[in-house]
């Protein structure tokens, strides 16, 4: 049989090769964005596992659940340790890839500063809110935090005048409805101690990550992803350790020495720190893949693929904490799973234009 390419003119062959290159780039972007969701699941699972270690369980048992220490300080310690571990992973991999010089040269540039500012919003603010939310309400907060693509779309419309047509508005309404379904499920049967505060803080996390996806997305198309994520995790870890924790201690009237004694005890406890080292690596991979996937296949589709962690995070947490560690309370009620499906549908409606998908399918058939 004659090779079809032999009959094509050089110009047609070049266009055919370009279509194949575009398809490969698009698929790679989607795979990277989906991988970010899987890694987000492991990040959530191992942060939760760290907060279920014998050491952590002892603190939970001896501190009143409504005390400032239990509500704000201890979960923030978890977030600070996680992000610091993540920053160490990111720095080590940046060094291994020979990008430390470019990392230094990027810090004091406009895109670098923009990325660090968005890291402040998405790191210390959103991550601490998310960790506290997880500790207060369990993995039921995960789908609420997964509203961040919807929030990112709205912020992109306000800040960058990006398109927000009827399809995206419908998708946002679907997500809000799913959030209400989850909220109604939480009011019955969930044994968590402070579900309302948990859900509210999960929404703060969604706001922070939506803002980060919107602002950092633009900066990260100029900055190498590895360098960008190293900047993010370093800013987040350092600010949580050296700014947020001291501020919370002063605000809550908790002696600084007591706060940092909990921190050092967690770092020195092998089963606990092992969980955070794994969680930190998963967080590094998740956020790096999120940035890269967004920049490769577009923020909307990238965030929609990443948004599948609505399923993945509770599932991985159930597998790791519920089944492997044998701790009860991590199986979600059926309505939460249904709501998660509805939320994913909403995210997809926001992110995926059926006309563009149809065009891509046609293009794929044409080049086949």
């Amino acid at each position, binding site marked *: 049989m004659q090779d079809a390419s032999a009959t094509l003119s*050089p*110009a047609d*062959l*070049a*266009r055919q*090769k*370009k279509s194949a*290159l*575009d398809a490969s*780039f698009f698929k790679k972007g989607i795979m990277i964005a989906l991988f970010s969701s899987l890694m987000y699941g492991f990040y959530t699972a191992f942060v939760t596992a760290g907060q279920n270690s014998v050491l952590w369980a002892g603190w939970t048992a001896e501190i009143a659940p409504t005390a400032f220490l239990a509500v704000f300080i201890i979960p923030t310690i978890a977030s600070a340790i996680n992000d610091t571990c993540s920053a160490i992973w990111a720095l080590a991999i940046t060094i291994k*890839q*020979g*990008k430390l010089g*470019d990392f230094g*040269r*990027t810090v004091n*540039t*406009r*895109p670098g500063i923009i990325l660090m500012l968005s890291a402040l919003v998405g790191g210390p603010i959103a991550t601490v809110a998310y960790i506290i939310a997880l500790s207060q309400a369990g993995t039921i907060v995960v789908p609420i935090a997964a509203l961040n693509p919807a929030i990112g779309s709205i912020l992109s419309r306000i800040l960058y005048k990006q398109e927000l047509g009827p399809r995206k508005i419908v998708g946002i309404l679907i997500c809000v409805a799913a959030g209400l379904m989850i909220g109604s499920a939480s009011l019955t049967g969930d044994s968590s101690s402070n579900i309302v505060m948990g859900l509210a803080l999960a929404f703060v996390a969604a706001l922070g990550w939506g803002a980060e996806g919107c602002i950092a997305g*633009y900066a990260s*198309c*100029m*900055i*190498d992803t590895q*360098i960008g994520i190293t900047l993010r995790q370093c800013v987040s870890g350092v600010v949580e350790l050296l700014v947020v924790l001291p501020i919370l201690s002063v605000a809550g009237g908790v002696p600084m020495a007591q706060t940092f004694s909990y921190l050092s005890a967690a770092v020195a406890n092998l089963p606990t720190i092992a969980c955070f080292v794994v969680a930190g690596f998963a967080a590094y991979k998740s956020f790096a893949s999120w940035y890269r996937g967004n*920049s*490769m*296949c*577009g923020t909307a589709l990238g965030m929609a693929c990443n948004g599948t962690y609505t399923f993945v995070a509770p599932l991985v947490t159930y597998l790791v904490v519920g089944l492997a560690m044998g701790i009860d309370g991590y199986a979600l009620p059926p309505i939460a799973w249904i709501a998660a499906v509805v939320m994913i549908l909403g995210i997809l409606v926001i992110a995926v234009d059926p006309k563009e998908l149809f065009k891509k399918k046609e293009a794929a058939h044409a080049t086949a």
Partner: protein
Amino acid sequence: MRPLNYAMLKYFTTVDEACADDVMGALAGDYSTFTAFKREKMQEALMTAEKNGLIAESRVDLDSNGDLRVFYSASEEQRATIDSYIK
């Protein structure tokens, strides 16, 4: 010396159009030892920049070996955007 990605984007403010090979030829003096200084990675970085509107595809052709070359260019507005972010 700028980070590699910045230098790559900045190059498009100085030429009418360029493909990955042109960019690599122009930057080889300072960046050839960088781990990211590989054709596949540079092509991916160019496609990412194009996806985000910093540069635009101008044409495609085949080189003497039959390998694809994708040429990109930056409009006045795109050059102004790159210049505003990268000094």
